[in-house]
């Protein structure tokens, strides 16, 4: 799997460099950006990881960037770094879906722990998303007739009952059924049921 990256957005170059130095000490990959706009321009949403974001920045603030990403359905976990007394901003950020925040000056272990958790959450989200995409493509590979057969199999009907209800011969149902199992890469009816439920849930 792709190596996670910690994306740092901070207008203060020295702070950004120091964060890079700290985070790289636990062997994580780091990319820094000096403004929210630079991040929007340079970010590849395909890369797993998390975002460490300064709340206060001239131009587009951290909160503005969070809003922009949400509007674009980019769900990278965000850890906000807030200044002394910015509690209200932090609360707003978390209410708007931020993963967490740390208050400056922060304990390094706190920040690194949160980063690890954020990366794990991102990996989890990406894994689920990948599964959804895969399922969708599996289902998309079925013909309409195979879809009908699948739905009835999942409902627990026997081949004979399916044949009756669809006005087909038992033999034809048998063929469709084998095709479905094959296309869905299922080894048993219970596999089919699980996949079908997951698809509906996603």
């Amino acid at each position, binding site marked *: 799997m792709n190596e996670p990256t910690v994306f740092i957005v901070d207008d*203060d170059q*020295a*702070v950004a*460099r*120091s*964060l890079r*130095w*700290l985070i*790289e*000490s*636990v062997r994580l990959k780091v990319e820094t950006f000096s403004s929210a706009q630079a991040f929007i321009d340079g970010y590849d949403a395909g890369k797993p990881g998390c975002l460490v974001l300064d709340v*206060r920045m001239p131009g587009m603030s951290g909160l503005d960037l969070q809003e922009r990403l949400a509007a674009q359905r980019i769900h990278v976990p965000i850890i906000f770094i807030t*200044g*002394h*007394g910015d509690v209200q901003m932090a609360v707003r950020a978390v209410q708007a879906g931020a993963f967490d925040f740390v208050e*400056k*000056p*922060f304990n*390094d272990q706190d920040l690194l722990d949160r980063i690890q958790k954020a990366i794990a959450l991102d990996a989890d989200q990406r894994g689920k998303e990948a599964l959804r995409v895969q399922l969708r493509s599996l289902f998309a590979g079925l013909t309409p007739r195979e879809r009908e057969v699948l739905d009835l199999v999942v409902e627990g009907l026997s081949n004979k009952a399916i044949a009756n209800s669809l006005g087909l011969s038992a033999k034809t149902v048998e063929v469709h059924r084998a095709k479905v199992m094959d296309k869905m890469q299922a080894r048993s009816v219970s596999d089919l049921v699980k996949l079908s439920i997951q698809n509906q849930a996603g």
Partner: protein
Amino acid sequence: MHNEWSDAGQMFPGNDLMWLALVILGGTLTAALIALVVVLARLQEAERKISEKESNHESILDRLQENEYRLRTIIESEPECVKLQAEDGTVLEINPAGLRLVDANQPADIIGRKIYTVVAPEYIDIYRENMRRVFAGEAMVYEFRAITLKNRIAWMETHAAPLRDARGNIYALLGITRDITEHKQSEEQARRHQTELARVARLSTMGEMATGIAHELNQPLSAIANFARGCIRRLRSGDMSPEDLAEPLEEVCEQAERAGEILRHVRDFVRKSELQLRPVDVNQIVRSVVKFTDHEARQHRTMVRLHLGADLPKVQADSIMIEQVICNLVRNACEAMVEADSPRREVSIHTRGFGNDEVEIEIGDTGPGIDGTVIDQVFDQFFTTKPDGVGMGLSISRSIVESHGGRVRAESGGSGGTVVRFTLKTGGQPERNRERADSIHS
């Protein structure tokens, strides 16, 4: 006090008495009244002359008497106080509205007595001067504080004009007076509110500045911490050779210098921010600080005792800045006692003369005192022993005191507790200004 005096001294000199009186008095009623009174006076004068001559023109006399009667009725029913005063201040005549104004039960309570019996002592001199000018021919409007016959204190405004006899000699002052207490009070309230606002604005500027500094300083401090932590982690995991330390350490130094630069700015700000030096009463500053820290102190079960020196000379100071210093010191004292959970919590503030040309202010507490090993550092920027302390309070206080040409010292008291003393100059130029003057010459 000075303002009030100059208010009362507003004067309107004039040549042609009647016309000026008309212009000044503005209201047609008042003007008409004056005209009537003047006519009345002329009539009286004429009456006197006529009787002097033992004239037999009875019908003329009758007509004059009739006119006089009519004028009197008008004046008697006039809702504002109308009175005549002699040059020495004796009240010659006064209408019923006037009697009510000075809380007199009957005319004899005030007629024949000096007007000064109802003028507040601090206004008597200025009142005399105003009367002198009216008797010299000026029409005037003046304000004064009155103490009525029933000891009620009221603000009065008088429109005064000289009265002349047929030969043009001034023989009385005609005054129309009204009670302006309410107006005065709302004026006073507005003024007080203004100064209060100005003070709050300046204090909150200091507060904002402190928050701003905290934000600014957080940047280099966070960076330093991150670089250092990154080094420690690498050293611990054996990920780093000593040569690799050079670069992050370079960064650490740079950020430390950046923090120092920010602080220099703060000190310059305190130094350069326009000190509004005025002769001020230290005791008054102490009292006003105590007033607005009182609530906080009481919440922490802390007593504030004042031992203010008598007859202290005024010091040259910016009172807001000195308030800030005392406020910091009192707050530190309270915080120390709360933190140590001291059973007896007392802040005592002493003021006293010091040497020839200084006043000393001392803030003592019954807290834990300051450890001998750190007492030399408490004035350093960022020195703090409090979990959420900023460590700027004493540092800023020292900058303020020194910019006034004073000194500040902290001692751990013998019987426990902390004593912080600072001095302020009583006169002349504080050091800051002297430095400036010097640099202009060099």
